């Protein structure tokens, strides 16, 4: 259907290119958007209803936020719990795709960054990639992918970039092509970046009204562009507010209602990640994962069985890390980090997980 970068197809060992088409098929994305009910209507439903109705096997699923900041992790966990299969994961970063691999939720990956910054690379992802449990079908830098989402939001079939030139990323991405800048008489290579259209995005925000108008704090990263691009969008929100509250708030709406298919009231929907204005990372969860669980495949499986399947919803997760005590401490820690509470007495010390520690030791 599309004329892909041949060298990249060879390097990635992709024979059936039909798996690549939907991501850049702007006509089908427009059709999907046209077919939506555009009315201002009540879109509230439960998380399980929203995931069941809007996430299909094989969908291109977009990660949101930034790894463990403002990412719709509880939405993603519900996708895994419902046993959805063979998704293509995309996102800048796409850190959270990796634990979907062990359950067969993530099969393909549009790769920009998977890892934990100062905690290093993702051993679980590296292992699963080598074993063929997940396959990279396009390789990106954060900026190139961000431009692809932005082009979609701007309604353009693509854009030209000065990123990626000279790198091996261009030899491992079927969607990217180096071209001569058509406006220039001199040698001026540019990279054509097609607009990117995921099938489904789950985005977590601070507040949404029942129609899907959204407001959030902290970095948008790619969320505004992805909401406009994706064929289907589920919003999970710390709270539902009235339409009047959105209208009279200085920020207005940052994501408009007509992007949105479902609105889920879901306090702690970004947990165990960080939510701006609300709560801090569940440090115990991440530290134990990085230090202990990801070392072996059995360790990963046992860890995520315990955390994702061992709690049927976010209430179970909160109970595991200390309930209201965690909420109180975590909220103070986040608010102080953001300069909205006093910082004295708040402990940010980076404690490494050791065997035998429980949630009170690293909370």
């Amino acid at each position, binding site marked *: 259907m599309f004329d892909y970068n041949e060298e990249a197809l060879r390097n990635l060992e992709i024979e059936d290119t039909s798996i690549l088409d939907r991501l850049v098929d702007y006509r089908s994305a427009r059709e999907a958007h046209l077919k939506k009910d555009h009315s201002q209507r009540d879109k509230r439903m439960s998380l399980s209803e929203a995931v069941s109705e809007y996430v299909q096997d094989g969908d291109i699923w977009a990660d949101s936020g930034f*790894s463990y*900041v403002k990412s719709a992790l509880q939405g993603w966990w519900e996708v895994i719990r419902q046993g959805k299969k063979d998704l293509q994961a995309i996102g800048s970063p796409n850190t959270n795709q990796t634990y979907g691999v062990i359950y067969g939720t993530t099969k393909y990956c549009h790769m*920009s960054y998977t890892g934990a910054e*100062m905690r290093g*690379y993702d051993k679980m992802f590296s292992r699963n990639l080598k074993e063929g449990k997940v396959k990279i079908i396009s390789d990106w830098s954060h900026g*190139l992918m961000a431009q692809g989402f932005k082009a979609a939001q701007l309604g353009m079939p693509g854009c030209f970039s000065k990123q990626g030139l000279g*790198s091996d990323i261009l030899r491992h991405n079927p969607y990217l092509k180096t071209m001569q800048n058509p406006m220039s008489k001199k*040698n001026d290579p540019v990279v054509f970046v097609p607009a990117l259209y995921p099938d489904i995005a789950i985005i977590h925000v601070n507040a949404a009204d029942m129609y899907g108008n959204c407001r959030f704090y902290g970095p948008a990263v790619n969320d505004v562009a992805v909401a406009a691009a994706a064929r289907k969008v589920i919003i999970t929100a710390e709270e539902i507010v009235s339409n009047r509250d959105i209208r009279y708030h200085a920020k207005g709406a940052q994501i408009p209602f007509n992007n949105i298919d479902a609105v889920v009231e879901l306090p702690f929907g970004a947990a165990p990640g960080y939510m*701006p204005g609300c709560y801090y990372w569940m440090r115990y969860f991440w530290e134990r994962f990085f230090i202990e669980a990801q070392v072996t495949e059995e360790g990963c499986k046992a860890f995520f069985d315990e955390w994702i399947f061992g709690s049927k919803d976010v209430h179970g997760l909160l109970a595991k890390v200390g309930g209201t005590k965690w909420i109180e401490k975590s909220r103070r820690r986040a608010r102080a980090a953001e300069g909205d509470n006093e910082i004295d007495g708040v402990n940010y010390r980076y404690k490494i997980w050791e065997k035998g520690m429980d949630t009170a030791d690293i909370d």
Partner: protein
Amino acid sequence: MNPLEMIAYVLSKQIEDHEVIYIGTGLPMVAASLAKKTHAPHITFVYESGGQDPEPCEMPWSVGGPMTWRKSPMIMEMAHSFGQAAQGMVDKGFLGFAQLDMYGNANTHMIGGTYTNPKVRLTGSGGNNDVASLVDKLIYVGLQDPSKFVPNVDFITSPGYLTGGNAREEAGILGGGPVAIITSAGVYDFEPESKRVRIKSLHPGVSADLAQLASGFELLRPEGEIPVTEVPGPEILEILRREVDPNGIFIGM
């Protein structure tokens, strides 16, 4: 003083006052914070997740975390954040590396094997390629040994001078390219014609032969005697340990 403290100090000296700099987590953040508390109080920090010029606070552990956008005058979207580097609004960028070759091309993708079956899959680009492609001056930082300074990188994530000479310019890359590499052994720059890595100064106790032993490619040497890198005075170390990274998150060994 440990090697990480030395690296943090030397890196901080690469920053001039009033510059806008693109930084990631780890040593670049420590160095930038030290620079701001010492010789460069008016620098502006920019992060790929969108944070800009946060109020100083604890050391951030993630470029998306609250310490990168604490009371920022504005927080940009990711596409706009890199866009300002393309538009010439950012002076310098700092990057780490898993492998680096003699032309300053860096790899953070994979080690060994093939792309589809690597020995180790690393993080991928993240914003590294974008920063390396767009900022006016790029500075690399990391520990140095022959597994990191290699004849050929297994994957070019971030372009340096590619095959040397004018190759970077011919490839159409906007940013000026790497100007320095700060390692545990010394400070390197690039020979202007060949664009090959050249010793600029070596840390105290490091000879040119020792630096060469810690490299998988030939290090060019400057004419004349090789200068010794300036070490931080006690008052700088005090600021580094007491104020910049009191918990030793990045400079503890």
